[in-house]
């Protein structure tokens, strides 16, 4: 008879053990695995509960399997608990901007707006009574989106109406055949390209040592790990010709990209409440007291705004971090950081990084540029045969800060750039280069590259 007891307990525990696996790892990894984990979260506590407008990451890279196109992924609403649905804000414009002239003015803007498919006002999904287990649950309230393309001097073009937003995977009772739902959320755009909108496993990962050094000045196991939670992704795959200045991607290959969320205020005006270009820029370069302000700034005002330029030239955080790791940060003014974050790498401005890589000045039809913070991508950089997660620090010119791929270890790269690379010697060994990565959900080889949502921990 004792078989029964031990057997059923064993089965119970087996289930428990499986679900603890990831959490064990996270618990072992300690304080790094908190809100400060993803790139843009430990900035403004005012955003703490306002997750709908919290942009966590922006990726932009030449699509590896479709090199005539560029993939852009903007992630919002990080740290989604598996099985729990989260909604986009229906009064917010989620936008991805493309600047192909180097002025900070968006030449093209892709705008998502959302609507909740319910006749009655409903509480946000994350609030409605719902347990994580299958059980009596109210039906999933779906959202749909409209994608509009805005261009200077042209009428707005609606690319998608009533688009399907992939919900999170709530299990077979509510979201049966989940992989089909994912397929349904990927659709072609008129004029070429694709779009995916919806929940996916958060592809962000970082080196715990780098995060801890940057934030707490503590050394930690240099192991790379992600968060076993989900994000809401806005992903586009677009022909390069559509983005390039004059439609000529070979002559004008450089584009600057950023994402913003603008929420309707009580009038009819929309207020920009969130902005993200280069990862970590807001919380590492911009001082704490100005971080909220940065979120409201438009790149075209960066040069005149008196915030972005001076902060980049003399980031307070550089000294703090340098002290913590016994290194010497280059003295201000940090022309190298200006080149990396505000102008792009070019030899034409006598910057300390002598390389023509991703400045708008490389565009044939551009003669002068402004210093603005954008994630700059040279679309003509050939695909790396062996992509390196250290990006340009290891000579992989296709990697961050030339755009950002899903595999780039941006936190470490930013840390090292803050300490002086690649213009100077810096401190390349500040984080162990051979530190292992231990990721739970692999990215895939084709658009949208994102793994299906994390369900329970495996």
């Amino acid at each position: 008879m004792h078989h029964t007891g031990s057997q059923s307990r064993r089965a119970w525990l087996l289930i428990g053990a499986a679900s603890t696996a990831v959490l064990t790892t996270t618990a072992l990894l300690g304080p790094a695995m908190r809100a400060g984990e993803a790139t843009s979260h430990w900035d403004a506590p005012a955003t703490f509960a306002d997750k709908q407008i919290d942009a966590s990451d922006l990726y932009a890279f030449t699509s590896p399997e479709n090199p005539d196109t560029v993939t852009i992924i903007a992630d919002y609403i990080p740290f989604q608990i598996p099985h729990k649905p989260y909604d986009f804000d229906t009064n917010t414009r989620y936008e991805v901007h493309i600047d192909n002239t180097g002025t900070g003015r968006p030449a093209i803007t892709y705008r998502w707006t959302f609507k909740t498919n319910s006749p009655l006002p409903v509480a946000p999904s994350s609030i409605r009574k719902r347990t994580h287990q299958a059980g009596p649950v109210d039906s999933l309230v779906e959202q749909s989106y409209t994608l509009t393309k805005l261009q200077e001097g042209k009428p707005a073009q609606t690319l998608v109406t009533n688009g399907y937003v992939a919900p999170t995977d709530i299990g077979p009772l509510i979201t049966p055949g989940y992989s089909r739902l994912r397929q349904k959320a990927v659709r072609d755009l008129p004029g070429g390209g694709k779009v995916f909108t919806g929940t996916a496993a958060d592809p962000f990962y970082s080196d715990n040592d780098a995060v801890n050094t940057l934030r707490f000045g503590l050394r930690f196991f240099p192991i790379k790990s992600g968060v076993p939670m989900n994000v809401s992704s806005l992903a586009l795959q677009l022909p390069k010709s559509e983005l390039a200045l004059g439609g000529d991607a070979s002559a004008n290959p450089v584009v600057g990209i950023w994402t913003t969320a603008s929420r309707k205020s009580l009038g009819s005006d929309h207020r920009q409440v969130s902005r993200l270009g280069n990862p970590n820029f807001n919380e590492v370069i911009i001082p704490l007291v100005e971080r909220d302000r940065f979120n409201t700034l438009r790149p075209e005002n960066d040069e005149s705004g008196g915030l972005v330029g001076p902060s980049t030239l003399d980031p307070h955080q550089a000294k703090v971090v340098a002290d913590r790791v016994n290194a010497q940060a280059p003295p201000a003014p940090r022309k190298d950081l200006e080149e990396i974050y505000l102008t792009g790498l070019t030899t034409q401005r006598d910057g300390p990084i002598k390389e023509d890589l991703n400045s708008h000045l490389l565009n044939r039809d551009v003669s002068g540029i402004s210093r603005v913070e954008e994630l700059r991508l040279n679309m003509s950089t050939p695909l790396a045969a062996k992509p390196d997660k250290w990006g340009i620090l290891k000579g992989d010119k296709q990697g961050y800060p030339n755009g950002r791929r899903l595999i780039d270890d941006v936190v470490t790269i930013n840390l090292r750039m803050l300490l002086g690379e690649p213009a100077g010697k810096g401190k390349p060994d500040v984080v162990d280069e051979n530190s292992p990565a231990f990721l739970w959900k692999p990215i895939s080889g084709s658009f949208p590259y994102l793994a299906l949502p994390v369900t329970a921990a495996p």
Partner: protein
Amino acid sequence: MIAAAALAGVVLAAHPLGNFSVNHYDGLTVRHDRIEDVAIVDSAEIPTLQEQPTGPADLHARRACEELRGDVAGQAEGRALAWRVEEASFAYRPGAAGLRTSRLTCRLSAPIRVDRPLTLTFANAHRADAMGWREITATGSGVRLRDSSVPSRSMSGELRDYPSDLLSSPPDVRQARLTVEPGSGERGTAASVRGVDVITRYTGMLADRLNAVIGAERLTMPLGLLALLLSLVLGAVHAAMPGHGKTVMAAYLAGRDGRLRDACTVAATVTLTHTAGVLVLGLLVTITASVAGEVVIGWLGVVSGLLIALIGTALLRSALRSRKAGHGHGHGHGHGHGHGHGHRGVVALGVAGGLVPSPSALVVLLGAMALGRTAFGVMTVVCYGLGMAATLLAAALVLRRFRNLTLAGRLRRLRPYTATMTAALVLLVGTGVTVRAVAALI
């Protein structure tokens, strides 16, 4: 509207927990024939004022305790306990601003019989909506408390001395779950961490220590030994956690008449396989830029499950065959049904048990490697495996003893079937593990 809400905020703490709090404590004592609950309700100034008793204090105490009794629920092995109020007292104590606080003490008891291991649950839903401190403790007296979700000592001195500390929140424990068994001596539980069971708590503490040691600036000899010891313990605990086929192994070994040599072989194999597995996975993770742990561990789970299922099939076949062959020999002659596949089966089981690397061992190894302490990391992992083996060995030995006991009794006539039962069990578990692992992958 806001002014009204804010008023609550102005009330500054006179009672250490806010003068609007109603604080609960339940001190459970399990005896061989009953379970006692000292239930204390410490009301701060305002609730005391709100519930001014009418009539004499002892009558009020009696009434209040009867009400509390109605809100207290307990179960022994799923059967509801019948609580009785044994004693009730009510007293005022001086509070702030010339007001009073009050303290209601109820002694409840319910009959149980601890003549075998019992699982008890307890829940106190008295004034569930009121805010305040809620604490439960449990001890055994004349019985052994084997497992308890609550600590044995009150951290507030039974609601007399509330620790105030910026980095802790008042506990909110409303339920307890204990396992008691006949015997004496008590295994007290450590200082309470809210809502965390003992194993998890200790494991977490150990893992923290281990990480701290390995990450230390200088690795001295005592520190190193401490780390190895810690990993040994962690390994043992890890194996005691589910998912290592130890039931299977123990059953199998018992089915093979519990030869000590076999048990040792299994233990050694488990250690070896697990160490090798962690090393290989660690290497894989280090060489390739990123390995999807979910997938690797998933596949290892499938392999492990298939292996167990395979062993189960082989066992079943041989058991059935030997039963057919040995029918004429009569009862009590169960030897021989394991001979068919001898050592191979034992080793295979060990492999299956050690195949899925534990993530924590992997993390430890990777951390050590990253700090240039690879050799030390490997040693830690070996210790980890040894710890696991020790647990498995212990499980097998216990089962062997148990088996001898039962076989001495009337279960003896089941003897011829044990081989079949074992085999079927192994097969089933193997199938289950495989199906589960495959499902996780899809």
